[in-house]
């Protein structure tokens, strides 16, 4: 399986991007203590002072913001929070959905209707709005500073968003399971004395595998979506540092995760300093594309494996697909 995965260019690109960003960010944090370079002014050739913001490639590779902070360092600093945060939200919600969805699928319908109807409110009210209202007291810094640690805030946020993303995924798994359980071979297996666990392990899991992989990636993409919404609403992953009093600036993120940079710099858009918002957006898009690419490659590999497996089993029963028993030796040109 790993070998096949290695041959999928989409997987390699996606995986490579994520690992590179993560490794770069961790090295930046461990060896350079998340240092952010700062250029308050430069002198041009005529000995005049030029102030920030500098465009990308002008002075620093990704440009600087209004105060001369180099964006590339912020991107590096935020990468680990973005990537690890998204993965932990995705994994948590996927695990919860799996643990709830499979037993729900085994159960006959009826009891779960009440729960399902109540939860359908989640279809109408977007998860990001619920997360915003629920997390706002925790994440907005009060005038006296945060009483909580960064780890606690991150953990709570992951937990809350993970739980919010669970219900649709759980209902999806439950539906898929109950569809599979209605198949004939399941009935046969049951009448031969198979228990639920046996059914789950040897009949459900092989069929669900492909869909579960896709679902896992979908949960991750959903997590990016919610995080980007919260970032735009200026409720940053890990907390929002607010300034108080007259002349206070815009709220500033604690972690510089990519979505929060979009929210932080959004108001500079009117001044045509496009790269401040554009760069974090590009990185977010790249991250999502990496996730979709990996998901596609995994799905390809899994279907390929299934095909190899069935053709090994049934090779003497069925002719290969796409090759007729009778084929023209010389094809007439069409």
């Amino acid at each position, binding site marked *: 399986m790993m070998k096949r995965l290695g041959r999928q260019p989409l997987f390699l690109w996606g995986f490579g991007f994520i690992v590179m960003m993560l490794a770069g960010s961790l090295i930046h944090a461990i060896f350079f203590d998340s240092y952010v370079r700062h250029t308050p002014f430069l002198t041009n050739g005529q000995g005049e002072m030029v102030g920030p913001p500098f465009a990308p490639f002008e002075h620093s590779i990704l440009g600087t913001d209004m105060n001369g902070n180099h964006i590339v360092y912020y991107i590096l600093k935020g990468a680990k929070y973005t990537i690890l945060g998204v993965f932990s939200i995705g994994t948590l919600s996927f695990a919860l959905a799996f643990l709830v969805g499979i037993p729900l699928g085994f159960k006959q319908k009826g009891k779960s209707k*009440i729960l399902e*109807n*109540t*939860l*359908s*409110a*989640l*279809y*109408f*009210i*977007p*998860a*990001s*709005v*619920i997360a*915003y*209202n*629920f*997390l*706002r*007291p*925790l994440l907005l810094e*009060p005038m006296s500073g*945060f*009483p*909580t640690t960064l780890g*606690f805030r991150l953990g*709570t946020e992951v937990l809350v968003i993970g739980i919010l993303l669970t219900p649709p995924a759980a209902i999806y798994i439950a539906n898929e399971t109950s569809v599979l359980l209605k198949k004939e071979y399941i009935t046969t297996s049951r009448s031969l004395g198979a228990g639920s666990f046996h059914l789950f392990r040897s009949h459900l899991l092989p069929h669900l595998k492909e869909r579960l992989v896709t679902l896992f990636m979908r949960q991750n*993409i959903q997590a*990016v*979506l919610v995080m*980007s*919404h919260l*970032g*735009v*609403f200026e409720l940053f992953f890990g907390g929002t540092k607010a300034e108080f009093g007259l002349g206070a600036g815009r709220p500033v993120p604690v972690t510089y995760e990519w*979505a929060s940079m*979009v929210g932080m710099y*959004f108001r500079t*858009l*009117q001044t*045509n300093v*496009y790269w401040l*918002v*554009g760069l974090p*957006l590009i990185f*977010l*898009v790249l991250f*999502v*594309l990496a*996730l*979709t690419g990996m998901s596609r490659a995994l799905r390809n590999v899994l279907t390929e494996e299934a095909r190899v497996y069935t053709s090994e089993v049934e090779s003497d029963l069925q002719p290969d697909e796409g090759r007729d028993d009778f084929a023209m030796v010389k094809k007439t040109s069409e």
Partner: protein
Amino acid sequence: MDGQVSFLAWKSYLMHECIKPLFLIVGVLLISVSPLFMSVEGFVWPGLEKIAGIFGQLMSPESLVYIHPESGEERSLFPVIFKAFASSVTVLGTALVVSLSLALLGTLMLWRAPKRIYQLSLSFTSILQSIPDVVFVVASQMFLVWLYVETGTTFIKLAGAGEGEAVLAPALVLSILPTIYFFQSMLSLVEEEKEKPYYEMAVSKGLPKTFILLTHIMRNMLVRLSYQAKFLISIMVSNLLIVEYLFENFGMASFLLTYSQPPVFFVTALLFFGPVYLVLKIVELTLYFFTRQEVSL
């Protein structure tokens, strides 16, 4: 006999449909009360009086107020919220019409295109679908600002308040993502419909292909598209809130995000999502009458 059975079926259907919104209301209530359980220091138990207080406030909706978070000024919620509602519905409706017609136009144009181009646009749109909606909104705002800087004129109003509120720009920006979704599902549905026997039959009868598309495929496709209505609406609503927030429109987003005290949130959510629910139900009933297939949206 037969009539009685169908009458009973209708009765149980109606019962079911009447109970369902009640659960929805309970769900919305739970969501609007939930912020009480969170404080600066983490999860807390707010105490029963606080929750009971919210119910008390909800009992007399005409005296509800919304509070500006920074100035602390209180204003009465009730006539004002209808203005916000009208603004949101206008933006949402315009975006829906624009995106549906754009996607239909695109499908019509691609209908006779070579297979390669068709497949290419299918996979391109499915990649675009996974990109977060924030990206489209912010990118289009960047484009509008760039347009202004380059040409010096505003083609459409970017922002405003009160009477001069921008409607067209937010609606156009909001329609980007639904257009992609509609377009993608229309393309794949048309392709599926082409595989069906009735299409071959119609072709072999010698009917012109455009005629087949307009009369047969289009109808079947629209029916199947409306099965996805709930999903599409949920995408559009969450995108609408982003658009309203970023364009600083005075719409439902202001009440769901900025002025969201629990009672205000509850009233706003009901006022906004009630009609959405009703529209979905109407679509469901229409589908039932035309196709005799029960769908639950």
